[in-house]
Structures are given as structure tokens and as C-alpha cells.
């Protein structure tokens, strides 16, 4: 414990230099880092990698409107997201931000941290997939932009290189779009999802669906979009959308049995969540 070096730089340049120079754990809100540390220590492994605390870096706590959409800084917390006035496109992500843990966690935990942890049950992730978000990544080598779907490479695995930091998320504008989110858990607050569904739906003036992006979480090692369902929704009247999801739209998911639920249940519940997600709003 005492051996862990702790860095809390105040410039991005310093942060990138520390990140590139040593094997460090990046820490933002700490709401994933601390529980993981405690779980290891409980069974006799108190060691921890050195820490790069990025919370003192300037200019990363804002949600800015850009030419193409929005840039969400990597220190934006769930609460900050929930408080910010944003178009209906963000309603799903906002709903998720109010269902993550309790308010204590929402006040400290970041959306980017949730993404980088890349847990199958991360509530932010299906929303980011549905928002077609891209990840802004920086290293001493420069910056790059990667779609969230490419950023996530597997169970708790990402494409982030050892010298890289995530600086922000970019969400493209989509006119007339509405986001939604449905979370299923075994209790009310402070609950890890058994399964969840997120979606963004755009409609034209006649109420027909012009774009649909639908994603499921906790139903496979990595949350995933459902291209078959999305295609089937195109051109459908919004009011009829809830009837569209069918079992064959879920063929690509690979739910597992764990302490929270069985695979068979997850598969069935996912379909119900999708129907609920697509329920027309009054």
C-alpha cells in the first residue's frame, strides 16, 4: 500500500508524460478503482499500481456544444450530465445517469470512467453506442478519434494503449431524435444491471422512423448494437415500433448465467426491455 506512487498533475502535458513513462492506473472519480482495490485486498493482495489522478486537469469538466454535436470532457460526472440542459437525444443517457449507483456515486463517477472500465454491465455504454459516440484519445504521439464500438474490444478490454488517455467523448447531432433507456435490476437503487437497453430514434414529420440505433448491455461480453432490429425499424411508424423486436433480432447476443440471472432469462428479458424501450411516448 505504502509503495504506491501517486501523481496528480495539473497540466495535460505532465499527465501524458507520466502516463507514457510508467505503468499507472488512471483515476478520475475513483468509483471503480477503489472497490476493485478493496476486493483484491480482502483476499490478500494489497498491492496497487501507481496512480495517475487526472482530476486536477483543467478544462475537462464541461459539456461543450461543437459544430457537429457535443464534446463531453472526461471529468464530466453522472450528476453533471443529469443537470445539464440537453436535447431529447440525450434522454437515455440522462436516465442512465440517474440510475447509476446512488447520488454519492453519481456525484463523483465519470461517464468516461464507466466506458474505460468496459464492464458488460456499464450503464453508460449502450447509451454511448446508441448515440454513435466517438472517443477522443490523447498520447504524446498525438490525438485520435475512435468510435465507441471500436474502442471496446472485449470483456473489460479497450483499444486504449498504455500511453493514452481519454480526453472526451463526441456525440454527433441528430435532428428530431429521442433517446431512451431501460434498466433491469433486482432492487431499486445501487444495483448492477441484469440487462439494459438503450436507443436513439429519429422520426420524420409523418412519424416514420428515419434512423434507429439500438443497443443492449449485460447480454454479452461487450454491449452491442442490434443492426437487424435497427434495419427492421426503418420506415416503421413510431407508434408501432414496440411490435418490431423479435427473438431473431437477438441472435448475436451471448448472455451468460451468473449470480444475478440466467442466460435464458436475460435473452427473454432483453426482448421485453426492447419492446418497452420502443413504446411510444405520449
Amino acid at each position, binding site marked *: 500500500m*505504502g509503495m504506491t506512487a501517486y501523481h496528480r498533475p495539473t497540466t495535460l502535458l505532465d499527465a501524458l508524460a507520466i502516463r507514457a513513462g510508467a505503468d499507472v492506473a488512471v483515476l478520475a472519480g*475513483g468509483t471503480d478503482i477503489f*472497490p476493485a482495490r478493496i476486493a483484491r485486498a480482502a483476499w490478500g*493482495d494489497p498491492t496497487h499500481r501507481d496512480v495517475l*489522478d487526472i482530476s486536477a486537469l483543467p478544462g475537462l469538466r464541461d459539456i461543450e456544444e461543437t459544430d457537429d454535436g457535443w464534446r463531453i470532457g472526461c471529468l464530466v460526472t453522472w450528476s453533471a450530465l443529469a443537470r445539464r440542459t440537453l436535447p431529447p437525444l440525450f434522454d437515455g443517457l440522462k436516465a442512465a445517469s440517474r440510475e447509476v449507483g446512488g447520488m454519492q*456515486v453519481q456525484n463523483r463517477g465519470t461517464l468516461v470512467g464507466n466506458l474505460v472500465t468496459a464492464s458488460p454491465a456499464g450503464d453508460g455504454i449502450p447509451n454511448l453506442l446508441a448515440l454513435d459516440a466517438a472517443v477522443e484519445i490523447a498520447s504524446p504521439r498525438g490525438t485520435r478519434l475512435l468510435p465507441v464500438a471500436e474502442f471496446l474490444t472485449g470483456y473489460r478490454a479497450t483499444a486504449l494503449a498504455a500511453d493514452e488517455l481519454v480526453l472526451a467523448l463526441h456525440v454527433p447531432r441528430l435532428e428530431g431524435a429521442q433517446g431512451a433507456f431501460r434498466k*433491469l435490476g433486482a432492487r431499486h437503487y445501487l444495483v448492477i444491471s441484469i440487462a439494459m437497453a438503450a436507443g436513439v430514434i429519429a422520426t420524420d414529420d409523418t412519424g416514420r422512423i428515419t434512423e434507429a440505433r439500438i443497443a443492449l448491455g449485460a447480454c454479452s461480453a461487450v454491449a452491442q448494437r442490434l443492426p437487424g432490429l435497427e434495419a427492421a425499424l426503418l420506415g416503421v411508424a413510431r407508434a408501432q415500433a414496440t411490435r418490431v423486436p423479435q427473438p431473431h433480432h437477438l441472435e448475436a447476443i451471448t448472455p451468460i448465467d451468473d449470480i444475478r440471472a440466467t442466460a435464458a432469462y436475460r435473452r427473454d*428479458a432483453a426482448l421485453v426491455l426492447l419492446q418497452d424501450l420502443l413504446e411510444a411516448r405520449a
Partner: protein
Amino acid sequence: MIDLAFTLNGAPCTVAAPPFAPLSDTLRERLGLTGTKEGCNAGDCGACTVLVDGAQACACLIPSAQAQGAEIQTVDATQGAVGAVLARLRASFLAHGAAQCGICSPGMLMAAADLLLRDAAPDRAAVRDALGGVLCRCTGYAKILDAVLDAAPKAVPAPLAGEAVGASIARLDGVAKLDGTDRFGADEAPADALWLRVVRSPHASARFSLGDLEAARRELGLEAILTAADVPGVNAFGIMPNLKDQPVLADGLVRFRGEAVLGLVGTREAVAAVRDAALPITWHPLLALHGAEAASAAEAPQLHAHAPNNLLIEGRLNRGTPARDVAHAEGRFTTAFVEHAYIEPEAGYAQPAPDGLGMEVFACTQAPYMDREETARVLGVAEELVRIRPSACGGGFGGKLDVSVQPLLAVAARKLNRPVRIIYSRAESMASTTKRHPASITARMAADAQGHFTSYEFDADFNTGAYASWGATVANRVPVHAGGPYRIANLRNRARAIYTNDTPAGAFRGFGVPQAAIATESLVDDLAEQLGLDRWEIRRRNAIGRGDTTHSGQVLHASAGLPECLDALKPDWEAMLAQVASHNADEPRIRLGAGIACMWYGCGNTSMSNPSRMKLTLARDGTLTLFNGAVDIGQGSTTVMAQICADALGLPLENFRFVLGDTSRTYDAGKTSASRQTFVSGRAAMETGLALRRRILALANAGDDAALRLEGTQLHVGSARVIDLATLPADLEAEGRYDPPTTALDENGQGTPYATYGFAAQIALVSVDTGLGVTKVRRIVAAQDVGRAVNPTLVLGQIHGGIAQGLGLALMEEFLPGRTENLHDYLIPTVGDVPEIAVHLIEDPEPEGPYGAKGVGEPALVPTAPAILSAIRHATGVTLRQVPVLPHRLWEQMR
């Protein structure tokens, strides 16, 4: 270490702390602000909630480095807007009885303050959202919600002499629980204490050998590495007088994952830095027996020399000859390990006496006298040489009846001849301490054409885990209660406790009776269905009442209020049924259902002497002191004993001082378990008060009804006489004792196992999302016969808390060794899960009890789970025979 500067409760603060240490640790250990509690260190419980720059946050998840420049407010805040809001919340929490054990209270207060500073007049939903991140295991949240919503609480006026019993006075220990000054196990230790960390087995069954520990000790910079060989006395503890089967430190063989193997003693940094993998332990894993079925198999290895077939004990009850009848139901039921999930993990310290013999242990406990006996045996010293000083107890529910840290601390402190402290981690607490017994039950029940129950048969295996703990108690108590509070002439009940390689199962609110009630109440619903009878009606027809004979042949001469409980519920039941019918008529997916269940519960130990003794002194300087050995674990015994004793003596409560549960200063009031404190110790408190009153009246030569009044040293007796206490040759002292009259059970389980029983019935309204299998409990109405509600607010608190735990048992709680050893995989109800609760208190006085009172602690939990299951069945048509009813289990049954 880095130097930090921030604003703490409005004042500048600087402290040197490790940057990666959680802020909660820096507040507690470096700044001495122990008002901020730690229950999990993983963000799961919210006990550590503080305000950071005005927003609630878990201090256990914040690296101390991030405190730099921030504004931190804790429960200790007295100044400014936060101080003002906290002051008003404290008063409201006190008036509403919103703190029971109080370990969650600082976190609750801070979460509530966060809300009220943003929104001065929130609605209930907003309060729920704000408190959603703080767990409370005691209160069921109802009183907490009320307290936050009530801006102008009315304090109950101090009752006059003789009017304390029946008054909803604020708990006497409440202020300290709400201002953060109450001292729990982790909140106090001598400055020079070393730290103990226990190395635990990662295997459920294994042999192990140890290498060069002395070399390891030197290399790791430790003061000592303790093994079984360091236990100076007998390396064994256990609840049963004749069966001390659990080692303090395992001696070459472990029988469950989490068993203590080594004790590392040194500075906090040194013991925390040790990797278990760096220790010279060689493991030889053995076949592990998980579950009672595996352990009872013919080829299963025997886990203890004294227990062939791994059978610890078998309890029986036989009466008449069970037979089939017009209606006949049977089923197999299974329940899970359930974790107590008190928010305070075990903690404390031991302080050795310089003479090399004496030992003082400060720790959280429900049973100081048993701790003393266990600790003395382990140390190999006389009991009188051990002093147990109970800390405030942050929840127990049965889980702190067994020793945990006490013998380990004592062994370490003796070996090093220095004070030694320990704080269990949440995972350690969950992996190593007792659980509710998982049960696998087969039961049958029969009724005649009129719906009168005629026969009952019950056969259950309880998984008692690796060590006996309270397994024998469960096996004895269950057959007596299994048939439920109904008149049944023919019964054949058997309960077995089976050793396995699972976590030891011990005492947990109800000692096996809640598991049995799940089976029995389900069968009662089956019989009602077969006979076309309403579920309330069949219970009312069979409800045991005054004059009836119990299954063990005991005639209930008094205080048997189940019929009254059911009658009180009748209007609610009918309204609920009507609501369900009208809702379900046109709602295919979200179905409502109403359910009902009853229970009985014997107060005190089963057929065993369990006396309680108290002392009251009126000193020559006018101080009146009750020496009360009963440990208040949040249920309120300190307050209740005082109310009873005050009325017996005839002086008002404000005259009293208290010395509480300390084995060197108080008498043995027995353990805080089996719903016995109000009944047994309460009666002892009453006898104590009466005894002092008799002495005073005799001294003053006054009549029985003389009123007493104490003014300084002047004791007024009646209107005419005054005793000047200062002139007496000695302090006035009186004692009272009570041991409930019981008899032994014969080989058929017949006899008088308890002096009195509590009775209750509950009805539940649930909604089930049939699409997702998700159940939400909407409303519970409870009716409970408590004999006499000595303090109605405290009684309601017990009932609310029991209901919340029963809800958890029914819907979400399942401890899986090695898999749910934290509070995010092991789910207990949050403020969002607990329904609206209404309570009818039935007072059918118990002549043996103090002012008619009897136990309340456990009964409230028993009917909740079966009532919820009954409601789910009403909503969906499926009968659940396995708890918890996780969404996927209900979904599977509905398909």
C-alpha cells in the same frame, strides 16, 4: 504522505496523509473524526457519506489527494447552513426514532442534508432519491423518510413518574448516535495499539502446512505471526456448552473458505502491506462438501470426529398420528444463506492487564457474558480476569452473538503484551461470520372439509456450515414452531442440522422459524385453494388462541392475540383483495396480488434457563443508577429497561443514570437474542425497581401507593415524609432477577419450551411485472401482539426493520460463499424497495412480562416473506418454493 489543506466543517484544516488513502480513513484515523463511519469501503453502504463542495459523496471512494482545496463537511459540522440543517435533522431523527443502532445515521444525515440544502421542501420521491445510496439494516427506512420530511418534529414530553411505560419517548442513547459521538467497535483504541490482520483460507476444505514463519515475520517487518500454537488456553470456541468445535486459528486443517489461519500483528502499514501469497503456507485442497445434501450423502467424508454422517443434531416433535384428510398439500422448499449485513463490520481492541493474566476487550457484541466465557477459555484464565466492554453495536440481528474478533484480539494482545486492534473488512465479515441457515424442507399438511387443520408433517435439513454455532438451537426451536400458530392435533416434525464445508450458519432473527414459515404458510394457501376458502378465513378458523394447546402440549393461558391480529387485518385484507381484482381486470402485464401469513414465536431460550439480573442504586448523593447488563444493539433495550424500571420504582426517567452492559460493572442480563430482552430483562428491571421501592417505603414506613419525588438528596415519600439520603449510613441498593419458567422437552418434543409467545399476521400487496418477473412490494399491513408496547415508537421500529429484512429474504438476499462477499453482489433492500407499512399493535398482556410486555424483535420478520410469496402467487398463479424470488426464478416458474 502528502500535506493536504482543505476546509473541514467550515474551518481550515491541514493534515499529512497518504494521497491514495480513502478520505474516510484520513478523517477517522488522522483527524479523529470517527463520526464518519465505514461499512464497506466500496461505495456500497453510504455510511461514509460526507459533503464535498456541497454534494454528497462516499468518503471511502475519494483519494485523500482529492480533498486538496475542497470544502468537506461531515456529521460533525455545527456551523453555517450545513450545521443548521443537521441540527434540525437530528431533532427530527430523534423524535421519529429514525436511528436504531445508529451506524447508518451519520451517512443518512449527510445525504439528507445534501438534499435539504438544494430543496427545502422535497417530496417523498425526492427524499428516496437522495437517500438511495445509504443502506440501513435496522429501520426499514420508514421512520427515516418521515424524519427527513418532517420539518417541525414534535418532541414527546418527558413522561411523569409512573407514566413512562407506554410512552413513545426518544431513545435515551439517541443523541450520541446522531451527533457522531457514539463509539462503535472501530471508533476507539489506545494510541499505542498494534494492528491485527487475519489471514484466511481461500479454500473451503484443505490441509495446510506452515514454513519458516520467523523468517517471514522479520522480512515483512511484523511484530508477530500468530498460529494455533500461540493460543494459550483451549484453541476452540462455540455456542453450545458441550461443543466448542471452532478453532480460533486453524491447526493444519480448514473447513470453510474464510476460516482464520494466521494472525499478522504489527503496525497498521506493515500488516496491511502483506500479500498472503508471500506467506509460507502450503495448501493441500480437499474435497469440499457444499450444501446439506452433499454432506449427508453416504460416501461423504466426515468433517468432525463427533458427528457421524455429518449430523450435528436432530430435533423432533411428535404429537398424535398424522394422516391424509379431505384436503392435503405437500411441497419441497429451499431457502438460501442469508447474511446479517449489519452496516458495522466487527471491530474492537484488546488491552492486556500488566499482570499477564487479565484482559479487557472492547468490541461490538450481542452477548458480553458469553464473550467473556469464550475469551477466558481461549486465554486459559478465569472468567473474572476478562472484562468485556461492549462498544456501541452497529447492528447484530444474531450475527454478533458468536465471538468473532474477541478471542483473536485477546490471543494477540497476550502474546505481544500490548493493546491490539482490528477492524474486519466487509468481505472478511461476510466470509467468516455466521449466516442464516439454508433450509431444505419437505412438508405436508391436511385439513378436513370445514378447513380445520388435522395433520402436519415437516422434515428439514439445515445447513449449519463448518461449525456448530447455533445449529442446535435451530434444530430445537424449529420443530416447536414449524406447524405455525394453528390448532393442529397430529404432527410429526423433524429438523436436522448438518455440517458442511460452507460458512458457519448461526443465529439470525428467528433461528430457522422464518424458513419453516415459508413452507407452512404456502401449504395453508394450498389447502385454502383446495377447499375454496379465503386465505384469511382458513387462518382465522385455525388460529391458536387463549386456552388452546400448542404443538408441544403447552396450554396458552394468556397473551395469545393471533385471533385479534387477524381480526384487525380483516378490513385491510378485504380492501386489498378488491383493489387487486379491479386492477387486474384490465391490466394483463403488471399484476397485483395480495398475500397473507401468520406466525408465532417463543420468547427466550428453548427449554433452557436464561435468567437476567439487574441492580439499581440510590446513592447518598442523590444519584439513581440502573446497572443494566442488556446490550442495546439498536432495538432500544436501554430505553425500554429504563421506562420499566422507572415506573416500577415510581420516579421519573430524568432521575436515572445508567451503567450499561460491562461485565465488570453490571450483572449478567443474558444475551440480546431470542426476543428475550424486553420480556426477560424487562421483568428483571421491573423487579429491581419494585425492590428498591419496597426498601424506600419500608424506610419511610409509607404505604404502597406513596408517590416518590427526588430533589437532590431529598427523597420525598408521599406528601408527608422526606428521607435525606445524605444522612443514610449506606447507599440504597436493590436487585431483581427473572428467569422465565420453562420445562424440558421430552423425546417427542412435548413440554413448556417458552414462558410466552409473540404472535403476528401480515398481509402484503405486491405488483409483478409478468414480462420481466420483477416483483415490487407495494404495501404491508402488520398486526402484532406485543403484550404491551412499552415504547410504541421503538416497537414500530422493530416491526418496520423486520419487514424490510423479510422482504430481502423473500426477494433478493442470497449469500453464495466466495461470490457475494460484498454489498453490491449481496443485495439488501434500499430505501426504494421498502413498501408503505401500516401496523396494528395488539396488546394482549402477558402476566409474566413486565407490565404485560413480551418480545418483538424477531416476530416481525417471520410472516413477511411468506406473505409476499402468497401475494406473488395471487398475482401470477405460480407458487414459489425457493427464495429469494429473483426475477429469473419467477420468470422460469411463470413460463
